[in-house]
């Protein structure tokens, strides 16, 4: 194994870094200034030069029908294998009390956690009940400068027009759009670090989709739909039985579930909720499908009496029974 040790040591043996102690002293003397921009703001000159060209083009092409710069859709070009991984992405769906965020686990090509999350967030949800406020290419870049819950997630908007609320996006959806980003990237980095939005050459975005964002944005649990289904995934196929799982926020002890054929209930039951204290807790159910004819069904999980009582809040999945 010594060959690799020698090889790597030799490969950088002639790297003599510039002395940057003075610069470091200056930056650490005023930490607020050092943290005011995304961490790569001061990155190497070649990187900045190309970024400048990109920013100009992005602004020029903004609002026209001309295709903008090519946006990566499936990154991870460096990985020669095609292994995949599950990523939790949050999407907007409807509830009895207006739009809420729903979590979906998507299988994507493995890669850098932020990039994987960005791909999932800016792609259509698999569940047709969900939508994303972030079209493909709308996020130019992301970064995380911390460890654990320290630090900050940086999200760079692709176009300055995204500071304003587009037609067709309601005020409530715009606020959820911000939380979509916060929850998805926090999940990908397994952190509670807040999200700071930027645009252009690293200018702080003090509003996004018309929502004021002068400070780093924290996760807001009231954005989440109180019930979610993790399994089954949309369109899964089963024979005999399936295990359904998810999370629910409820003051009840039981959560109802059912299997529907069209509008007809063909199976139903309930699951015990651990806490019942209004925080999120896991639920699971073993669902017997053995008496169902092959075909498409809807699995629905329903949590009643969560908050103001206008429920039930639900989450649904289409399943196929063989």
């Amino acid at each position, binding site marked *: *194994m010594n*060959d*690799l*040790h020698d*090889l*790597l*040591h*030799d*490969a*950088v*043996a*002639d*790297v*003599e*870094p*510039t002395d*940057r*102690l003075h*610069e*470091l*002293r200056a*930056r*650490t003397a005023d*930490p607020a200034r*050092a*943290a005011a921009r995304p*961490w*790569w703001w*001061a*990155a*190497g*000159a*070649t*990187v900045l030069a*190309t*970024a400048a*060209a*990109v920013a100009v*083009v992005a602004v020029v092409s903004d609002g026209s029908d001309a295709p903008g*710069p*090519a*946006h*990566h859709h499936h*990154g991870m070009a*460096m*990985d*020669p*294998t095609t292994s995949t991984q599950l990523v939790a992405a949050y999407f907007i769906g409807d509830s009895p009390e207006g739009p809420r965020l729903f979590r979906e686990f998507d299988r994507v090509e493995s*890669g*850098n956690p932020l*990039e994987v999350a960005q791909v999932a967030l800016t792609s259509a949800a698999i569940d047709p009940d969900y939508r994303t406020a972030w079209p493909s290419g709308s996020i*130019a*870049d992301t*970064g*995380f*400068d911390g*460890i654990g819950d*320290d*630090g900050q997630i940086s999200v760079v908007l692709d176009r300055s027009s995204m500071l304003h609320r587009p037609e067709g996006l309601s005020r409530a959806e715009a606020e959820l759009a911000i939380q979509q980003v916060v929850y998805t990237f926090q999940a990908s980095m*397994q952190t509670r670090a807040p999200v700071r939005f930027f645009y252009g050459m690293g200018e702080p975005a003090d509003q996004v989709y018309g929502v004021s964002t002068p400070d780093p944005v924290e996760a807001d649990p009231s954005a989440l739909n109180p019930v979610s289904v993790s399994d089954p995934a949309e369109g899964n196929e089963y024979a005999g039985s399936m295990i359904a799982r998810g999370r629910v926020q409820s003051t009840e002890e039981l959560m109802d579930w059912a299997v529907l054929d069209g509008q007809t209930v063909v199976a139903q039951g309930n699951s015990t909720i651990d806490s019942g204290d209004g925080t999120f807790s896991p639920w699971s159910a073993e669902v017997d499908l053995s008496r169902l004819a092959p075909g498409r069904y809807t699995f629905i999980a329903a949590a009643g009496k969560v908050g103001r009582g206008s429920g039930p809040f639900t989450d649904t999945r289409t399943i196929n029974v063989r």
Partner: protein
Amino acid sequence: MTDRPAWTADEALEQLYAAHWRGLVRLSVLLVRDQGVAEEVTQDAFVAVHARWSRLRDPDKALAYLRQAVVNRSRSALRHRAVVQRHAATLRPIADADPTPTSDRRAAVLDAMRALPDRQREVLALRYYLDLSEAEIADTLGISRGAVKSHASRGAAALRLLLQEEL
């Protein structure tokens, strides 16, 4: 360290800089290839460790934090550069300015490292350049020891294959 009062953040920065600046820049060069980017990444890591000194207060913890910060930021820098280059590629041919060309053999090693998947490259750099244990690598990258093992063996095999002529 027991016979002296604990360092202030500024003192810690000076001490850590003296002991680890060169080694950490070199670690980052193994990850990102470009020395200029490596210096920026490492400098940012030192700024971050200075800001968190009141919570770390211990040179060993600070060094572990620095390593982790350098690895994470190197990964983000690569990603950022990839995004920028993909954008730029649609505008004009990228000037192939690679500011860290060394000897052919050194360049070949750095190229081969860049060709590996992120995790394999990181595990190899931490193991063979910093000589960290499996447990330390697992902590630094936030992955299991089993994953460290598997990235190390796949990475080593891939690197040997890419560098057949150099080994």
